[in-house]
């Protein structure tokens, strides 16, 4: 079986000299739901920005069997649906509909195909009635769901989410957890929410200071108090 995400010996240093990733190797198979956990500044967000080449460090990134390089960027970006932490960064169009239509339009589809996809995605996240509103008017939970719809519109094979439940009230969190469950497929998510980790991911990768310090079934990780303490998670 070909892994959908395969990373070998990846290191990355920010332009200001901060070492963000040290020798990361990671393999994620199709259909897996993986949580990436770690303290602030552990390198989680930096790592996922490498999945679709928004950052490019030293080492190998292979997505669905295709090595990430300049000429494969377009194909790989289509395979990886990246949901950013702050919906205000992701939703930049004057109306929700235009935001959902952004990726399909970039894929060169015609307007009627774009409309079908956009309406389908809005329905899946329960925002069909809000399609004409500006994203500024949405609540934080609605914005989060709109960002997910905006990414689903690319029909990605792998969904990658940066803190999908942060900043939401308990109901908002539950809605996102249920939504992600209904979407299915391969999912990688960064989270600080250990309470919800079990219902969101079967496997957890623990990062600390730019390295992966543990990679195991979620239940095993959550029961290892020493590890969690070391990673700054309790």
């Amino acid at each position, binding site marked *: 079986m070909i892994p959908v995400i395969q990373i070998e010996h990846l290191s990355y240093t920010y332009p200001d000299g901060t070492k963000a990733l040290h020798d990361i190797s990671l393999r994620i198979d199709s259909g897996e739901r993986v949580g990436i956990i770690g303290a602030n500044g552990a390198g989680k967000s930096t790592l996922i920005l490498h999945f679709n080449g928004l950052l490019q460090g030293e080492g190998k990134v292979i997505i669905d069997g295709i090595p990430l390089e300049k000429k494969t960027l377009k194909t790989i970006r289509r395979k990886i649906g990246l949901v950013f932490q702050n919906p205000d960064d992701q939703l930049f*169009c*004057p109306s929700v509909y235009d935001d959902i239509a952004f990726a399909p339009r970039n894929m060169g589809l015609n307007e009627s195909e774009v409309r079908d996809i956009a309406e389908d995605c809005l329905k899946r996240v329960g925002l069909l009635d809000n399609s004409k509103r500006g994203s500024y008017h949405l609540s934080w939970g609605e914005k989060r769901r709109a960002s997910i719809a905006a990414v689903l519109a690319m029909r990605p094979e792998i969904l990658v989410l940066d803190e999908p439940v942060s900043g939401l009230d308990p109901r908002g969190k539950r809605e996102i957890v249920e939504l992600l469950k209904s979407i299915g497929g391969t999912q990688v998510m960064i989270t600080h929410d250990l309470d919800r980790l079990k219902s969101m991911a079967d496997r957890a990768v623990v990062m600390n200071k730019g390295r992966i310090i543990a990679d195991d079934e979620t239940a095993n990780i959550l029961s290892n108090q020493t590890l969690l303490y070391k990673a700054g998670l309790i």
Partner: protein
Amino acid sequence: MHHDFIDKYSNLDSPVHRIDSRVKIVFFFSLILICVSTPIYHIRAFFLYFLILIAILTISKIPILHVLRKSLVIIPFVLIIALFIPFTETSETVFRFNDSPDLMMNRWLLFWNVLVKAFISIITLILLNSVTRFDDTLKSLSAFRFPIVLINMLSFFYRYIFVIIDEAERMQRALVSRLFRGRSLIHAKVIGDLLAILFLRSYERGERVYLAMCARGWDGQLLIVDKKPLILKDSAALIIGLAALLLIRLWSV
């Protein structure tokens, strides 16, 4: 947080709201051009322009108070122009050497000219934004071959101006909570720092927005919008509207 949105009331439903936004843009901009080009002593023409605006206002169910309140933004500009009027010479006064009553009249006429035309123009623009959603306005502008880069800039402006205002408001609250009053000149530095932080945050946000756009397959191509032909009802509305404006203008030559 709540702001008075640029296109508040644009989501109402009325015969005016339903008209194609391209028609509305052409009509409202023609209204401004024709109004500005009308000689000021044709008072009844200006009266008719106002009447048209009030008719549209009534049909579109937009509260008149909202429009009036928003129209106050022109007052500072009109005042500045008014300040310069005593130093202005109108064509009729070129050959006069002293302040005759006649000359004063001309100056008042000049002031009246600026005031009325500015007021009608601003009300027209407020009305346009109240009966047309901002994204529709932008799409129509692109149909008129307005430079796509400028349309995208306006689109980002509309999307992020409130986000930035919110951010500034939150920072200001945090300052006030720490007993900052900002009344004296010494505090200018604090305000300068606040603006600098706001700029840096917006700059960084811009970078993140760019990354998020790339992640969704953006490759430098700018937004292209499909164009629908005007339906009969919209064309008729446009022709009637423009004919009315032209009639008023020709009547007051």
